[in-house]
């Protein structure tokens, strides 16, 4: 009779250890759940599909190379996000790039009011500085706790709250200005 060995799913620690040994499949398994959010965030912050893809690729490479600096495997997700944040900001600040606002994508058929709001919001949002865009993305899209947002941005927790507040004020002002156009 054949013995059936039941394999338990790999743990986070096991995957991180395997990735540190150079196992790309393990690394892929680690990053794959966060790739969609990473790419979406990078697109919002860089305002460019191509730059977003480059930024996530940069984040993957820097995380892969820097795995040895990750001491706590349980912190992998937050640690990888930090690479994404850094790469996205770098992409946004890249010199000489100009971007096209992808307004068509924000206008689904049959939802005219929402589409108009979305179009206005897109213009308003893209008027914000890259750091404001990132901050609002971390706060309202990733729904990160204040503490983790603070860690990503390297600022005190209290500063996160006030910056989110001011960024929202700026966004509202930009939205109102766009509505008056």
């Amino acid at each position, binding site marked *: 009779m054949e013995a059936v060995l039941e394999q338990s799913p790999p743990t986070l620690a096991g995957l991180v250890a395997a990735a540190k040994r150079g196992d790309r499949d393990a690394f892929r398994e680690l990053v794959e759940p966060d*790739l969609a959010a990473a790419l979406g965030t990078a*697109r919002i912050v860089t305002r460019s599909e191509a730059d977003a893809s480059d930024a996530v690729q940069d984040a993957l*490479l820097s995380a892969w*190379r820097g795995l040895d600096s990750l001491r706590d495997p349980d912190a992998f997700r937050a640690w990888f996000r930090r690479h994404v944040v*850094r790469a996205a900001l770098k992409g946004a600040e890249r*010199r000489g790039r100009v971007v096209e606002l992808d307004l068509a994508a924000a206008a689904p058929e049959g939802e005219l009011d929402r589409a108009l709001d*979305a179009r206005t919001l897109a213009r308003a949002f893209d008027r914000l500085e890259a750091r404001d865009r990132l901050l609002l993305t971390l706060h*309202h*899209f990733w729904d990160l706790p204040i503490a983790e947002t603070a860690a990503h941005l390297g600022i005190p927790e209290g500063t996160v709250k006030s910056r989110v507040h001011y960024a929202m004020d700026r966004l*509202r002002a930009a939205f109102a200005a766009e509505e008056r156009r």
Partner: protein
Amino acid sequence: MSDDFEDLLKRWLRDRAGNDRSALQALASNVAALPPRRRRGLSPLASAAVILVAIALGAFLLVPRFGSVGGSRDGTPMNGEAPTWNVELARCGASLATALDAFPMEHARDYRLHLPAMLLSPELDVDDPAFVVVYGEMQPFGGGGAAPPPGQTWAPRSLDPGHHDLCILVGADAATAELNIYANVDTTGMQAAVASTEPAASRVPPNLIPMWAVNIAGQLECDGPVARIGGEFPESFGGPDTLNNSADDALAVFLGPSNPFASIPTAGYTQLHAETHWASFAHLVDGRPKAIVLLTDTTEHGPGWQVAGLRACDASEFDPTVPLTFPVTIWTDQSGNRVSTGTIRSMPGPGHCGWDSVTWLGVEDNLYFRDPQDVMAEWTTTSFALNAQLPPSAIDSGYRSGGGSLWIDPGRDAYVVSADRVERWPRSSDPLIACM
């Protein structure tokens, strides 16, 4: 209003962040093409040290505490075999448990061979042997490598991805070697062992960055603010494919058609400074530097000259007879004085979006198009007209260019009035429009 607006923002962020499945799959499959990982554990020498220390510790536990132990007071074995680096680690406030890596350098000046991404550190450009300790966590000495003032603590900080704190001891005797602490060093490409430590003349890192190369913006004589283009040394302006045989060649290539920086003069540069490995050139107007390009032949890309710094005044301050690297038109005021491009500028539309038939005119926060082919119709509510009627609400802006004067109908279009016609330049509904 607040909740509704936040809900709208959240929905929009979700829509905007929504991903094309194929893009995600492409990224995921790129993981398979990542380069092999080079483990950044202890180097072979340091690993050997771990074993030696374990043996020494075992021996220490087995012999009488006050007996004759075969080692020196600092723990270095007396048998002349491989050192344990105990002194070096202790000087750096590290231990084998807290150091991520540790390795000797034959010469301190080799630091960029071992740590290619480390910024230039002139204090290491000496022949003395050196020893590097890479901390696993933050360096233990607090801010500035020193203890905080009494009653105070250093502010918390964090390391960037791929960065580590380093300790580099310079000197043959670890006990007296000069201690250098470096915070948040990019350790990309770090290697404990390097092929050769004897530098070739063409690859030697600069012994000292000349003082004149440190702050080129400070050497400009601008009437207005320094333009937000370029950067100071060691800003990167190109890869290995942009290396040249001489500083002059590198400058000529930099100012050529592929120059990524709009609005710097294509010619008319005078050499400001030159010494071994370094040169700088300035675009002078009435003897005043308005743009400075710094070059060096000691970049991390290997032998060859390359631009390493660029700072410039606004394009309106350059010699008007010299073409710019990108054809920005400088407007004048009614007295004929050239106006800053921060206030008004016009330029051809980006060709890669098929907008090169258009002239873009930016006036403060507004954008107007001279668009005879109506290719920008999506962003305008009126169209270009070659012979328009100047509306009574239009106001003379006072700006002039090529025999035309610019009139603005507030909130609406711009009009360029010349001797024989009035052109209407429609206003863009989006002043931030750009081309990907």
